[in-house]
């Protein structure tokens, strides 16, 4: 059995008992911070690094699941985390938290737009903030990547990045092909470890 990252995991990669109110609070602040595309990074920081609610691997499984299933990735990941922590009520809290603030914000923005306020200046600033948000994603990729053992995970990382990011192949078929291979490699590596 390989050693467990992030300390000892409890059942199903869930480590600490999270209260429902706490889940709502955490995801509301995440929802307010969700400029651009860095949300997996934000969630990883709050849920795995700071609160230790979940293992790194359970979190990343949620990232992959949320991307493959229909629906926005960030909302899927929030639902997954809430559900793994506290079942349906946990998922409900995470959903309200992650979607509520941007929902109200965007209606406010539409109101401002209707009243004739200029959006271009705001868009420039928000564009910069979005780039900063992406830094969160890079940071989580770096942290998770540095925790992977062996060469095979890196080959998988590069293959997926090239296929989906650079070559712009459709994600679903790529994932459907790569995931079984990657799981087989993980199984094989686990046996080789002892």
């Amino acid at each position, binding site marked *: 059995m390989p050693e467990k990252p992030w300390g000892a995991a409890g059942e199903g990669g869930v480590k600490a008992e999270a209260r429902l109110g706490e889940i709502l609070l955490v995801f509301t602040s995440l929802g307010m911070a969700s400029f651009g595309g860095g949300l997996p990074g934000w969630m990883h920081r709050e849920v795995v690094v700071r609160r230790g609610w979940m293992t790194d*691997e359970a979190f990343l499984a949620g990232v992959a*699941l949320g991307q493959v299933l229909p629906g926005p990735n960030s909302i899927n990941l929030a639902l997954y985390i809430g559900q793994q922590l506290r079942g349906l009520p946990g998922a409900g809290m995470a959903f309200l938290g992650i979607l509520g603030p941007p929902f109200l914000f965007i*209606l406010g923005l539409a109101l401002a737009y209707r009243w004739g306020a200029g959006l271009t200046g705001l868009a420039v600033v928000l564009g910069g903030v979005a780039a900063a948000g992406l830094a969160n994603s890079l940071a989580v990729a770096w942290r998770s990547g540095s925790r992977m053992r062996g060469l095979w995970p890196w080959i998988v990382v590069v293959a997926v990045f090239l296929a989906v990011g650079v070559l712009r192949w459709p994600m679903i078929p790529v994932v459907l092909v790569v995931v079984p291979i990657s799981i087989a*490699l993980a199984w094989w590596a686990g046996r080789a470890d002892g």
Partner: protein
Amino acid sequence: MAERLLALLLVFAPLSLVSLGGGPSIFAEMQRQAVEVHGWITPREFVDLFAISRAAPGPGSLISALIGWQAAGFWGAVAAAIGLYGPSSCVLLVVGGWWRRRGDSPVRRVIERGLAPVAVGLILAGVLTLLQADGAGWLEFATLGLCTLALLRGASPYLVMLVVALVYAALQHAALLPG
């Protein structure tokens, strides 16, 4: 009014299940339904709403809430959001519930170890895609690089974003940025 709320639900609920990877895959059909089929908004309004949804936080598919808002006010926005996020959320919860019942089995651990590098690859691909979609120039790449370094050294992301927002606002005020 009730009819219009129902219509919003019925337009967005099927789109929910084909919204793979979030918004971009369904924008075209949203536009067709909202503009051509139902006439809730004009083509020009759709472009503006799209710009607003790009600038705002949250998933790009929140443009559905804006369409609902234009069509039927606040409850229209709620109906559109429920339609667009309800069905896909149910699918995720069914799969997630099954996953949760696996507990800490060895099978699950192997699957998680196999999924981890795929997720990292997808995250990196997502960063590249978003940078290209935003037409990022040297300033965005420099921002991204500096912020990543700061975060890896333990800086608070809230502080990082605040600093970036202030710097961009200052640059724009000094007319060094377009906009």
